């Protein structure tokens, strides 16, 4: 706190007068001479009293007047004593001393008001701290509750999806089992390969599906279409080595296209299924025997689970 009135130093003149009677007499003579020469009036208040009056007024009119009433009252009483001393004997050491005390009392009242203001700020800040902390706690609890709800919902959804997937897997397995009399089914991780003999699906050198093949492929389509976008399906057509490469390529592509078209016509998503003719390039067995060539004439339906599906 910056004092409006610089504190008066311990009154050196006052101290001197008590330690040195000669100096006291000298000071008195000087004072009398000053009065005779018109440098001051006998009723003029001391500078300490003037400062005390100003300071008291400042304290009474400022925040201390309402926030530090007891301290201002003490200052008022101290100032009254100084005024009495002034009335009794103007400029006396008693007036100076009492005014000195009054000035301190007023300054103390103002300082105490400032003290109370900072104390109130501290209490307010502490209350803010607690309320902020409580708010953060409530917010965190709310977020936690929301997260737990979301987690529970996700868990439920996941369980439902898992159940649906398991049911689908069972359905697929059952359907695959029904195909076992006309197809070879192999499982490699997420990949399922259904291998259909060319003799079951097509007549020699033709690309049109036989009626029995349509019936069996209809069962396959019934399962595949339920997988929807989660799976990609590739239909690969293969031939044996008889005939030219060009012819075999065209024949295998035509047969793959026929199978694809039929599956799409039965509800399998068009965007999920592709058809490729592999010609005679990927034989399963040597083409030197009739049995080997029969095994090589085939259509493979490859079902892959899409990444993240």
């Amino acid at each position, binding site marked *: *706190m*910056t*004092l409006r009135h610089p*504190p008066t*130093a*311990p*009154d050196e003149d006052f*101290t001197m007068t*008590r330690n040195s009677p000669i100096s006291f007499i000298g000071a008195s003579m000087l004072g009398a001479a000053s009065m005779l020469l018109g440098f001051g009036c006998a009723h003029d208040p001391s500078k300490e009293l003037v400062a005390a009056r100003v300071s008291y007024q400042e304290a009474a009119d400022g925040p201390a007047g309402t926030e530090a009433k*007891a*301290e201002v009252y003490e200052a008022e009483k*101290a100032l009254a004593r100084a005024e009495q001393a002034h009335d009794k004997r103007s400029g006396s*050491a*008693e007036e100076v*001393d*009492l005014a*000195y*005390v009054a000035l*301190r*009392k007023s*300054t*103390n009242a103002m*300082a*105490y008001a*400032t*003290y109370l203001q*900072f*104390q109130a*700020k*501290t209490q307010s*800040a*502490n209350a*803010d*701290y607690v309320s*902020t*902390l409580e708010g*953060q706690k409530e*917010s*965190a609890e709310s*977020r936690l509750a*929301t*997260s737990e*709800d*979301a*987690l529970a919902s*996700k868990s439920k959804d996941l369980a439902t999806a898992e159940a649906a997937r398991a049911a689908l897997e069972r359905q697929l397995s059952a359907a695959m089992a029904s195909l076992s009399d006309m197809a070879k089914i192999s499982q490699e991780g997420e990949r399922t390969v259904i291998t259909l003999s060319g003799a079951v699906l097509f007549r020699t050198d033709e690309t049109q599906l036989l009626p029995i093949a349509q019936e069996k492929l209809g069962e396959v389509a019934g399962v595949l279409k339920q997988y929807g976008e989660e799976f990609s399906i590739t239909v690969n057509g293969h031939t044996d080595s008889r005939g030219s490469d060009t012819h075999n390529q065209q024949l295998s592509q035509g047969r793959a296209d026929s199978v694809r078209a039929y599956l799409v016509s039965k509800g399998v998503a068009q965007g999920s299924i592709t058809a490729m003719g592999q010609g005679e390039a990927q034989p399963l067995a040597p083409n030197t025997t009739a049995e080997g060539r029969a095994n090589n004439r085939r259509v493979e339906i490859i079902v892959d689970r899409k990444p993240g599906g």
Partner: protein
Amino acid sequence: MSYPRLSTILIALVAVPACATKVLPQQQMLDTQSTIASAEEIDASENADAKLHLQYAREQLETAKRLMADGEDDEALRMLDRSSADAELALTLARTEQVKSQSGRAIAEVDALRNDEMPSAGPRIAE
């Protein structure tokens, strides 16, 4: 604002002098010494005004003792009043400095807490 201390009361009880005219100054002197000690405990040096008034209080207390020893009771009493007033002012200023620092720290802590506050986003569950 007064600052009575148990130690002051105990010392006063033990040190009650035989001479009746010395009772009041001695009690006031003890009170002043106690206030000076309180201001010193708070470390009035943190505030230049408090430090200055504490110095005044000490010096005037010594002067008051000397005056009492010389039998200048009235002057000694007034000097003691001055010392007491400076001591109280020094203590108030020191306490004000102290609570001002506390206030600054408390406000800074609230600000820090508010700045650390997590954004009130939705649940932290990956969608």
